[in-house]
């Protein structure tokens, strides 16, 4: 136990300050206000892998590490779409995952936001469309 406490004390707090909103984002500040008003100060995310190569999953996991400490910002990943405000979708949406993704979307209560992560989620890029 002493070893653990010593290591925790020596490691210290590594969490970095979150970056300020991007200049481009200020333009949509009104939208942000609306989102904040609707969702309050906590955000819950359900991640759905819709055909990702698992690279994005590694990076989403990294958000939870002590440097980014995303839970410290009031953002939590949840196990059920029924508890989620946001669906975070990775991968080019493979045909095989389309129905599972649709069902997950349907199970998420309103109001809900879908965020596509990574190039594949946004455009399919190298995997192509269809």
């Amino acid at each position, binding site marked *: 136990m002493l*070893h*653990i406490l010593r*290591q*925790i004390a020596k*490691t210290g707090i*590594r969490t970095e300050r979150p970056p300020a909103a991007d200049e481009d984002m200020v333009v949509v500040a009104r939208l942000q206000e609306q989102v904040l008003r609707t969702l309050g100060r906590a955000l819950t995310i359900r*991640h*759905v*892998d819709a*055909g*990702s*190569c*698992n*690279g*994005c*999953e*590694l*990076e*989403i*996991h*990294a958000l*939870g*590490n*002590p*440097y980014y400490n995303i839970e410290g910002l009031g953002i939590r*990943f949840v*196990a*059920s779409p029924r508890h989620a405000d946001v669906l975070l979708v990775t*991968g*080019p949406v*493979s*045909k*095989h*995952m*389309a*129905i*599972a993704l649709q069902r*997950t979307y349907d199970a998420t209560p309103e109001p809900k936001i879908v965020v596509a992560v990574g190039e594949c989620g946004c455009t399919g890029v*190298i*995997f*192509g469309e*269809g």
Partner: protein
Amino acid sequence: MDLSKLGMTSAMLAAPLPARRAAATASQLLAACRDASKRGGRLVALWLADERDRERGFCLRVVLQDADGLVLLEHTMPDGDVQYPDLTPIFPAANRMQRAAFDLVGVPSDGDDQRPWLWLASWPIDQFPLRRDFEAKPNWQQGEEEYAFVRVEGDGVHEIPVGPVHAGIIEPGHFRFQVVGEKVLRLEERLGWVHKGIEKRFESMAIGDGHRLAGRVSGDSTVAYAWAYAQALEAIAATTVPPRAAWLRALLLERERIANHLGDLGYLGNDAGFAFGLAQFSRLKEDVLRTNLAAFGHRLLMDVIVPGGVDHDLAAEHRERMRAECATLEEQLRIVRDIFDEHAGLQDRFRNCGRVTPDLAHQLGLTGLAGRASGQARDLRCDFPVAPYAELAVRMVTATDGDVAARVAVRFDEIGESLRLVRAIVERLPDGECRAPVARAAAYETGLGMVEGWRGPVLLALTAGPDGTIRRCHPHDPSWANWPVLEHAIIDNIVPDFPLINKSFNLSYSGHDL
């Protein structure tokens, strides 16, 4: 492997490790597999190719590995109505490969298990995407699929279906548990949800660009796949990689291994209820990824390896940073490993959990990291070292307990060895160019690449088409061999230990589903 005593003639096959190819009749195929199995060889991969446009029917390709190297057996069938011999009685891992090959190319084995494997009713069951005359129709509707899971019956037996969407940030797949109380009697996996037609996509790409797609077969192994692709292409394009590039590739591969092992150790601690482990290891992993970004422009090292060499040289300042990082990591690992080893609660969860005995591992063909934790002493970096591994004399890490604790210990020791390699590479990195021009690959030539990724050996078979196209590319993840073994590892364990056991294997869904 001596094929001549089976009456077969073999020829050299373009690959960076000893490899031969031979045409085989059905009985020769069976004889060669039996012979390889008897002498401790294993099935690496099995796939089909449609060669009807060249009047060669369908070709079954089987790669075996033994102490002499690789053998590619090619069994030609005139049309899709012919069956080829089921290899499952010799190599159990062949089962899913044969079923997947049918789903994609439409030639069945003569085995009993003809259930689909990658097919999930997204295209008509009589259409086969990897046939050359396949055309996808936009009006195909998603159908319903009734998969015949094997059920256990008896007093108090019940079934727990899990997935494909899991309650965490992980890839999709379905697990069907048959349990009594908490005890698992049987687990059956159903995969294929991340299938996105990677092999089909390769066929519409230029051969010089394929490494980018190969690097996205399984993102956690992007270096291993890109290197395997580069090896296969360089072998058929008679390209020699400059020494500096070869050393940098090994540096990238070892950094990929370190990052993934660190991540896994954190989650293994966490899955046993030890959040301290996750906090420590995810911090250490982040440090490694940040160094990757600074030195090579990408945290996961995607697209750094290119055919002919590497796309990014290592600057002197980053050599220094890596050297310092090795020292810090070694010290931190020593501290955290002591804590892991002395933590009774953690060891209680790790030991005897999800055990795969060396005998079972050998029978089922368990490979890579999980194989080494069950006494299967195979590591391409030691068995068939390519440059620069021959000069670095990699020390193979093995254990014999075959439980979660053994897979944890192998990870710790492999990080230690990889840190030694990183330090050696950074110190001895030869000067010179880090990329050579790649010659045009001759049409219809086949080359193999094989790299010991962090999870296990990644194989990639590449056949060139005319005019710089890809005719067929089959990337093969070690997860194909290890997924079926996970079903055995969980037997007689309790359901709540499944996440821990699963994590200790940490197999790829994307690399398997393609």
